[in-house]
Structure formats: structure tokens, C-alpha cells
């Protein structure tokens, strides 16, 4: 029976250790960049499910840790899937209702969109993969940023994170664009992937 006892003890010890280490990992992960209750919104909202889309590409574009592998071929599958049968059927009816001027404008717009698409694909294929994502969500912010740090143009910073620093909240209007200066970096405000963020920008003319 001593064999039985020792086996039992070993199994129980393994279980206890496993449970403890799980709890540890869990609590570490759950807090993210830290900050406790005060700031609020420290849970990441980034999720493919945020898109509510039945279309995988749209879903993937709502995750902050995009992989380079969400690539062009996927997007093209998607695009060809979109220009699909039903469109052409119903387009006839709708088309009749629209006047010629609209049609001409549509065509011009489509052309511009397509041209832009192609440029974008070129950009994606050639540059995007190497750059990773310029995006600090709330969880990354505490570690990644301090006032005065060197921030690459295009980097987005969550509003709550920006406001938790000493950076001034007053804006400088240049034309109709509002700029915010924090250290030596200038920011503009914008919508990005569903959130309002500060985006590091080149200094406005004259500054």
C-alpha cells in the first residue's frame, strides 16, 4: 500500500502545482498593461467578432494583431465573391431609376476606387508585411510609450492612454485640422478601426 500512497501524493502534488501556475498565469494575463479600475476600458475590444461580418477579410481587419498572412489572394477571393450574381440582377432595376448623371459619376467613382485598390495592393504587398502593426492599444501603451518617446508617424494611440499622460489636451488649429503636441511629437485625431485615436503626424506647416 505504500506504493499506492506515494503514487497518490505524486499525483496530488502535480495537480496542485498545475493549478497554482495556471492561476498565476491567468492573473498576470488578465491585467494586461496594468492600471486597475480607475482608467477603465483596459480589456481589449479588438476581435474579429467586432466586425459582425460574415466575410472573413472584414473580420480579420478588426483584430489589432494582424498577421502578414492575411494576404492579397484572400482579399481577391473576397472581392470576386462580392461582385456576384444578385448584383447584376437587381442592378438593372436600380439602374433604371437612376439618372444618367449618377451613372457617369458612379463610373468615375468606381474607376477611382479601383485605381486606389491597385495602388493599395501594391503598397500592402511591398511594404506592409515588414512593418508589423503601428498600433498601441490600451494594454500596450504603458510599456510602449512615455511622453517624449520617439513615435513613428502613423502610430495610433488610444484616447484614454493619451489622456493618462501629461500631454496637453488643447489643440492647435492649422487650417481645419486640429493638432495636438506631446513632447516633440504632433498628433491628429481620427477614427481608426472603430476607435477614436491620436495618430502621430508630421508637424503642421510652420511648427
Amino acid at each position, binding site marked *: 500500500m505504500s*506504493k*499506492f500512497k506515494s*503514487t497518490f501524493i505524486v*499525483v496530488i502534488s502535480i*495537480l496542485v502545482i498545475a493549478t497554482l501556475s495556471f492561476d498565476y*498565469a*491567468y492573473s498576470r*494575463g*488578465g491585467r*494586461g498593461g496594468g492600471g486597475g479600475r480607475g482608467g477603465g*476600458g483596459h*480589456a*481589449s*475590444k479588438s*476581435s*474579429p*467578432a*467586432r*466586425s*459582425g*461580418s*460574415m*466575410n*472573413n477579410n*472584414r*473580420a480579420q*481587419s478588426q*483584430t489589432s494583431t494582424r498577421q502578414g498572412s492575411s494576404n492579397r489572394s484572400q482579399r481577391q477571393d473576397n472581392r470576386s*465573391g*462580392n461582385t*456576384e450574381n*444578385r*448584383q447584376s440582377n437587381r442592378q438593372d432595376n436600380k439602374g433604371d*431609376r437612376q439618372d444618367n448623371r*449618377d451613372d457617369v459619376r*458612379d463610373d468615375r*467613382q468606381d474607376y477611382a*476606387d479601383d485605381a*486606389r485598390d491597385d*495602388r*493599395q495592393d501594391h*503598397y*500592402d504587398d511591398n511594404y506592409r508585411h515588414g512593418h508589423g502593426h*503601428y498600433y498601441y492599444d490600451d*494594454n500596450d501603451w504603458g510599456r510602449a510609450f512615455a511622453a517624449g518617446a520617439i513615435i513613428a508617424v502613423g502610430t*495610433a494611440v488610444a*484616447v484614454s492612454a493619451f489622456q493618462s499622460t501629461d500631454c496637453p489636451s488643447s489643440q492647435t488649429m492649422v487650417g*481645419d*485640422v*486640429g493638432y495636438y503636441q506631446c513632447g516633440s511629437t504632433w498628433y*491628429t*485625431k*481620427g*477614427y*481608426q*478601426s*472603430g476607435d*477614436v*485615436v491620436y*495618430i502621430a503626424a508630421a508637424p503642421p506647416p510652420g511648427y
Partner: protein
Amino acid sequence: MTSLKRIAFIVSLFLALGITPQNSISQEADSQNIDSESIADLEQMFDFLGESETISVTAESNYDARQKSGQLIEFGAVSKWYIKRPSHVRVDIENRDGTERSFYFDGNSITLYDKSQNVYATVIKKGNLDQAFDYYMDKLDMPMPLAELFSEKHPFDINKSVISSMNVGESKINGFACNDLAFRTKEVDLQVWIEQGKRPLPQRMIITYKGSPGNPQYRARFSDWNLSPKLKDSLFEFKPPKDVEKIKFSPRINKVQSTENKNEGGQ
């Protein structure tokens, strides 16, 4: 104790503690299960919504966001949709955290007003509903859950993409007798409860992103479907409140060239 007995004991101990070897549940067994009637029902629902000239509906929705820890956290919102084809839509969104947003499209420009942050962005976009939705989601890189339901085109090529479909059975949602239908594509699972009878409207739907870690879901429950609401044109016009700050749409990948932003039409 023989070694066989010992192994049996350890196994039973693990079972008693609810520990099972991971990945024991096979995700396979999909096979080619296509119920063509369910497919037809789904197409009919999309067509019915896509052809309805005016719509108003309230959607209570939520989605899972997987944290670094692996835990799924749910966020939710109530959104009110007002649609007047071919080119007017307004969506009022109230998130559970109290933040409020409104989306406007009037055939000429798209505006997103964030009441809580007191900011708005406007971008010129002429066209119909579908063109506005596509532009907003694909070029401006903004999420717009449920927009695909109101599109004239299907969100995916149903006949090509659906690898499995079935009628789960009759089901009552919000007091409406519904067909509970389940579909799978390569990337998502879809379960949708479609009202029986003359109005094939979704009363509830769930999208599961099975390709993503944790299999997060988007869920929506609909109420107050109205296919003949009286919608004034002024409902679709955004009038900026005093002291509101004008910002830009700044997609992460510069999907919109800088010239586009210069065309922003202020009000």
C-alpha cells in the same frame, strides 16, 4: 497493487477531477451536409432584406473579444437602424459602456458622430447603400456589424461558400415562430432564426469566427422590425452640434489616399 490497477486509478482520478486530454473533441465530421431548403431560406432572407425599400429595426448585439490571457470578454450595444433606399441610412448606437454614436449616409457623404467624445468625421461618398457600406468597411476600415444584412448583395457567395447547412428545427424567438437554421463556411459558422411566413426576417443570429483563437462570436437579437416606417429626410442629415470637434477617418492602412481627406465635406 498491480501496475494495471494503478493506471486505472490514476485515470479515474483524472476523470473524477474533470480533466480530459485536450483536443479530444474532434472538429471534423463536417462532410458535405447540404440542406438545400435551408440554403433557399437564407437566400430568401437576404433578398427580402435587400429589396425592402424602407426598414427600421432595433438590434441588441454583443461580441466576444479574446484577451491576452485567453479569456473571452463580451462587449455589447443596442443599435437602431433606419434605412431608406436607395441611399439613406442612419444608425444610432448605444454601447453598454454608455458611449453613443450615430452613423449617417445621405447619398452624398458618410458621417460618424461620436457623442461621447464630441467628435465627428465626414467623408464624401456618393452612391447607394451598398457602395457606402463597402467604402466604410473596406476602405475606411471601420466595423459596421449588420450592414451586410441590409446590403442588396449577399455577404458571401452562398452556393459556393456554404459547406454545410441544416434546419435545426422550429424555434420561437421574441414570440415569432422561426426556422432555426445553421450554416458553415470555411471561415465562419452562422446560426440564424428566420421568421416563418410572409416576412422572412432574422429574429436572432450568431456568427462564430472559428478560425480565430477562442472561437469568438458575434450575436444579435432583433426587435421592432418595421418595413414601412415613416422616415423624414432630416433624420439622415447630420447637423454638427456647437463645439463639436471635426476629426478624420484614419484607416490603419492608408486605404484612402490623402487627397480623399481633403475632399471631406464639412457641414
